[in-house]
């Protein structure tokens, strides 16, 4: 393949690619995202290839493995084009039927269709499924359509058009102006205006500048950056190149977690292919603009997602943050002006260039424009990745898209912003989801993890969990964070073990304030948030632990006990076989009993019992 020399050559190639494709050809797409692979999606794909070959249909039907479609809960997902027939939870065993009926004869297989739990109705097409219908997909739009390892697929959906436009028709200042006008804010947590960051770096003195994609994605519960890179790697790369041109950088990087091997592989392949086509490297599209690209794998340290720590880490050093007074846009990687943006931020840029700042501006709220991808996880029915306009309410997200709380339980709180964020109680579920509103209720946007907590969740335990996380991730450079977080953790440990004392709450609040004010980087400054928000909204739960030595949610082991409900127990013996302490006894078909002396309150018996016969109090 000769390198493309101009925007016109790119368009000619696009026409050629499209000319070889028949939009009405049957195409089976199988989700190849990590979630669906964990549910044996690869076997489903293999079965389709084999099944089509066996029935002599291989040449008439395309089979494609795509990135994450979002509805991971129901994987492995299969969507059949052009109609978009939607089969969730497909197993390799069901494939021969799909081939001989749906593919060969156009018959819909009722029993494989998605059943809307709310109405009990079967739904045939993907776009009618409530989980998708209520979304506004921009970043995730092409994930279900393209093979992430194929540059032709990306070009077929309009890929690299924005890059070509920028290089052939716009000056760097015009690009920055457009991004500023779009009011795009960073999707990595703090929501800093992207255009302004680019402008600062452009104006900074010096010829050597860098651009970096932050794909460290350390927030537990978030996986949208991974899914974007695994599903549409070229879109991230295209955004980065546009930014490089705007700020005058000639070297770009991605900092990506080593725990994401498939994402590393796909972005590496995307860069190689882009280079082969003259879309990356020397003299891109004959414009005279050059930019290289390298992949840096992170090695597991949450703090390395922070700007200055990330850059130290890329230099081959331990990733310790440095003072925020030094801006990366002036002195970042190797002390050169550097723009670091989140994966989603970069991937939004081509959309803004193609459709215009006004279009972007028309979505969202006054202060938060555009869409945001959330990972809706925890105790909600439909877990997965959802893309919605900024400003949607928490309740709509959970009920209309998430299908409500699992097992008919009640919503208790929503945790956003990861270990730096907070827990928003059910009473505030009508709050909007945007940068300002989340901050106002004491939490933050973070990278878009939204963990739904139900009535069985103990809020003191949740706070303890996050402080454990933060204390193990603190780099230890400054005392306020190193000591403050550990002391808060220790107090919470005591409380959850039933050894809470009068005055603990006041002590937590005081430590929270000191840590917040004395820490060097945002990890320490925000670390007390999970405690402070739970204290604000769930103070009575703390008091129940401290004063009454009770865990109302039935979670904290030292404050609860397990017993068998004799009227519900069938004597199946499953709990007895699984109890790690051999604390359960009973004859077959007789009600079992738990020996409280031996029981360590691990909760395994309750999880395995199929008859709801284990009570916790």
């Amino acid at each position, binding site marked *: 393949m000769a390198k493309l020399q101009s925007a016109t050559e790119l368009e000619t190639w696009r026409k050629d690619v499209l000319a070889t494709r028949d939009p009405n050809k049957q195409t089976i797409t199988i989700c190849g995202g990590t979630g669906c692979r964990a549910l044996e999606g690869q076997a489903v794909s293999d079965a389709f290839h084999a099944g089509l070959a066996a029935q002599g249909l291989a040449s008439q039907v395309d089979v494609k493995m795509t990135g994450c479609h979002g509805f991971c809960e129901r994987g492995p997902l299969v969507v059949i084009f052009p109609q978009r027939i939607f089969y969730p939870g497909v197993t390799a065993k069901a494939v021969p039927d799909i081939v001989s009926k749906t593919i060969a004869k156009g018959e819909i297989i009722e029993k494989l269709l998605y059943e809307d739990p709310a109405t009990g109705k079967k739904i045939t097409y993907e776009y009618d499924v409530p989980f998708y219908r209520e979304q506004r997909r921009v970043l995730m739009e092409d994930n279900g359509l393209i093979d992430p390892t194929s540059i032709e697929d990306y070009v077929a959906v309009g890929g690299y058009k924005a890059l070509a436009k920028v290089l052939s028709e716009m000056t760097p200042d015009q690009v920055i102006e457009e991004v500023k006008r779009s009011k795009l804010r960073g999707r990595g947590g703090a929501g800093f205006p992207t255009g302004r960051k680019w402008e600062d770096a452009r104006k900074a003195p010096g010829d050597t500048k860098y651009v970096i994609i932050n794909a460290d994605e350390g927030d537990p519960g978030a996986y949208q950056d991974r899914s974007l890179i695994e599903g549409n790697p070229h879109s991230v790369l295209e955004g980065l190149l546009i930014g490089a041109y705007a700020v005058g950088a000639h070297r770009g990087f991605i900092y990506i977690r080593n725990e994401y091997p498939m994402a590393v592989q796909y972005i590496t392949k995307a860069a190689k292919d882009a280079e082969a086509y003259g879309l990356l490297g020397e003299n891109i599209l004959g414009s005279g603009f050059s930019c290289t690209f390298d992949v840096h794998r992170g090695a*597991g340290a949450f703090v390395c997602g922070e700007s200055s720590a990330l850059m130290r880490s890329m230099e081959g050093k331990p990733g310790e943050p440095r003072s925020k007074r030094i801006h990366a846009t002036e002195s970042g990687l190797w002390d050169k002006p550097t723009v670091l943006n989140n994966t989603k931020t970069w991937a939004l840029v081509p959309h803004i260039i193609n459709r215009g700042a006004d279009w972007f501006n028309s979505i969202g709220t006054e202060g938060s424009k555009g869409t945001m991808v959330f990972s809706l996880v925890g105790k909600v029915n439909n*877990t997965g990745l959802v893309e919605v306009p900024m400003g949607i309410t928490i309740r709509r997200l959970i009920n209309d898209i998430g299908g409500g709380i699992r097992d008919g339980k009640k919503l208790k709180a929503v945790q956003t912003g990861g270990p730096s964020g907070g827990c928003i109680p059910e009473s505030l579920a009508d709050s909007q989801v945007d940068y300002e509103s989340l901050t106002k209720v004491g939490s933050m946007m973070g990278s878009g*993890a939204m963990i739904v907590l139900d009535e069985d969740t103990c809020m003191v335990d949740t706070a303890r969990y996050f402080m454990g996380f933060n204390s193990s991730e603190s780099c230890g450079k400054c005392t306020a964070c190193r000591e403050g977080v550990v002391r808060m953790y220790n107090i919470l440990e005591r409380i959850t073990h039933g050894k809470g004392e009068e005055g603990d709450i006041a002590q937590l609040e005081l430590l929270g304030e000191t840590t917040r004010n004395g820490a060097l980087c945002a990890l320490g400054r925000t670390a007390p948030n999970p405690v402070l928000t739970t204290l604000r909204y769930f103070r009575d739960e703390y008091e129940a632990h401290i004063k009454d030595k009770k865990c109302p949610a039935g979670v904290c082991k030292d404050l609860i006990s397990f017993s068998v409900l004799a009227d519900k127990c069938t004597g199946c013996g499953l709990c007895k076989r699984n109890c*790690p302490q051999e604390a359960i006894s009973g004859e077959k078909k007789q009600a079992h009993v738990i020996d409280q002396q031996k029981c360590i309150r691990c909760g395994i018996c309750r999880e395995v019992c199929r008859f709801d016969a284990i009570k916790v109090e």
Partner: protein
Amino acid sequence: MVDLNQVDAFVDRYGGEERALTAVLLDIQNAYNYLPPEAMHRVAEKMKLSPLQVYQVASFYKAFSLKPRGKHILTVCLGTACHVRGGPRLVDQVGRLLKVTPGQTTPDKQFTLETVNCLGCCALGPILVVDGKYYGKMTVGGVEKVLNEYREGKEVAANG
């Protein structure tokens, strides 16, 4: 035994630049399941870095293990989404079946149990990963069956 030629090859792969230190260490770790001291010394020598810097980097990042690990690495996710859906009970169950606590290796050097703060597959929590193969919606009752696959020495391909 550490093959120093292979270590040299890892360093050469990245042109010996300082910024490649973590990449080199990750490759060594992938090859040996941990970072043998001889290998770290060789890296320092060949990349012209102080052994202290190599050691600091190796101990700063969670991906690196300074002690030998088992043939199979069992990783249980304790990220928030998995935590609220029973991750800690999986740790207990694996621990009970293998008689190890997180960070430990079985005496026969077959299994190491580790925990991690999110594996990026949160919708299907709780997640157990064995040697790069993801098991979604894992249950306490299902752990034994998974372990047996590896006890029998079957080769299982990574899927994530």
